């Protein structure tokens, strides 16, 4: 990283002498913006979560952990957090089951198809989340294409309720987040030496054995870091559960939204936001050793 120190046989450049304060000066504008628009608001949110709220008194200026106690003891919130956890886990599993093998299949494709289908897989990342979720809302309705196909195939007799149900949210979220899994596994596959696979085959290993004993262990870091990203994004996702799940099937993010913009209980909404942030940081930093090497390339 340091291009300066690696120049031998030359006195320190002017840049380096000035370097004692120049880097700080150059970072200063961005630091100021981050401080004012990120750190200060986050601190204010934390403070807000400690205030209490009354229907007629509004937001008070006392400090207490009452909101946190409420969230942790009230079964209503417990159910919503459990549902968020369940949806995130199922989404991660579905994204991994579809995304990881797909990345491997893409990896084995030959030249023109490989880049075409990689574009097909990653392209949806650039398409508006709202548009993609809307597509699922249309596909998953009671008279939607998915139900019609399942009935025509004789797999079900009556339409399955995907809309306003966890299954629908999981399917749509897996679609929205799968590109992150493909990116992560794809990056791991790039480091794979095809000769190792060939060596295994020449030593008599079957196709399944090569996959299980040679390929899978090597791309496991990719699958795991992809899973962390998908899980973290699923747990805090808002637009997709809001459209597919509707008003009644609440998750943590839609709950915070309702507290802020419908109930106007800002302190409670801030409490949920703080908990979501803490959970996110624990998930990502907790798996630090694994993610740190990758998350710059992958977490986007």
């Amino acid at each position, binding site marked *: 990283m*340091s*291009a300066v120190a690696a*120049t031998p046989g030359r006195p320190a450049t002017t*840049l380096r002498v000035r370097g004692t304060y120049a*880097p*700080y000066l*150059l*970072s200063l*504008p*961005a*630091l100021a*913006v*981050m401080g004012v*628009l*990120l750190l200060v*608001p*986050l601190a*204010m*949110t934390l403070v*807000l979560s400690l205030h209490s709220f009354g229907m007629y008194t509004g937001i008070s200026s006392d400090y207490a952990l009452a909101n946190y106690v409420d969230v942790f003891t009230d079964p209503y919130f417990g159910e919503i957090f459990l549902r968020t956890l369940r949806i995130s886990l199922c989404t991660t599993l579905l994204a991994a089951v579809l995304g990881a093998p*797909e990345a491997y*299949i893409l990896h*084995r*494709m030959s030249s023109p198809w490989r880049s075409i289908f990689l*574009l*097909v*897989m990653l*392209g*949806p990342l*650039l*398409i*508006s*989340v*709202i*548009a*993609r979720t*809307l*597509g*699922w*809302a*249309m596909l998953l309705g009671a008279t939607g*294409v998915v139900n019609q196909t399942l009935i025509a195939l004789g797999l079900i007799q009556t339409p399955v309720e995907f809309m306003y149900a966890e299954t629908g949210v999981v399917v749509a979220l897996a*679609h929205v987040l799968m590109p992150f899994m493909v*990116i992560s596994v794809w990056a791991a596959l*790039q480091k794979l030496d095809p000769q190792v696979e060939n060596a295994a*085959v020449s030593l008599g290993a079957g196709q399944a054995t090569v996959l299980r004993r040679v390929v899978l262990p090597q791309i496991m870091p990719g699958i795991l870091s992809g899973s962390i990203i998908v899980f973290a994004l699923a747990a*805090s996702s*808002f*637009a997709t559960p*809001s459209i597919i799940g509707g008003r009644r099937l609440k998750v943590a993010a839609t709950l915070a*939204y309702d507290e802020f913009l419908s109930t106007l209980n*800002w302190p409670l*909404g801030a409490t949920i936001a*703080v908990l*979501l*942030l803490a959970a*996110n940081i624990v998930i990502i930093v907790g798996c630090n050793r694994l993610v740190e090497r990758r*998350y710059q*390339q992958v977490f*986007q």
Partner: protein
Amino acid sequence: MRRNGPLALAFHCFVVLFTVAPILVVCVVAFTPNGYLSLPTSGLSLRWFRTLAERPEFLQSFLDSLWLAALASTTAVCLAVPAALAIGRNQFAGRGLILSLFQSPLMIPHLVLGIALLRLFTETGIGISAWALFSGHLIVVFPFALRLVLTSAVGIDRQIENAAVSLGAARWTTFRRVTLPLILPGVVSGWILCFIQSFDEVTMSVFVSTPQTTTLPVRLFLYIQDNIDPLVAAVSAILIMGTVLVMIVLDRVFGMERLLVGPGRS
């Protein structure tokens, strides 16, 4: 390299169908002649696109989104260039800490950012305006600008700049004529990635939008809350077709993989 077997190809077709189906269905439904959501079975119609033309608020939001994305991306890149040059080419105390601070918006759920900014702008008495929206978008896209500029700044040979200085170029001239052209690919691709991120952002924007200034994704989201009709399909279809067009151009010019997976990988 061994070929994919028939089972693998069948799986591949399923995943491609899964990926493309919701996007295609929106585009098809947008051309329905009916007044409700349905696949066009009785012919194609531009009815809903005409209806859209009579709703100027969607066009206004679209323009707002474009302006906001352009402004936020440009500001983010202007902040990212000096920061990336400082971080990418110097060792100094607190470098790691500053870098993590700059990258931290990636780890913060957009919902939390939206709530935090809503609190900041109401508590300080500034009030929610287009500035709140701009601030949020700037924070959200900054890490992307920094990452791409940083990647191109790390690879620069310092000797080229030293040559310019030894030939009598002033510091500003050296930056403008030597350094900037060298990091330009990172600056441009960073700007584009920022623009796309900003244009798609909805979760944070929902909290700091006002009836006067609303981005297109937020307007769509709020509209869908009340009813899903072919009108939103028409808006989404236009968005999708626009994005696909941009995507093809980007892939030709930069290579999608470089932009999304990260430079330096093949």
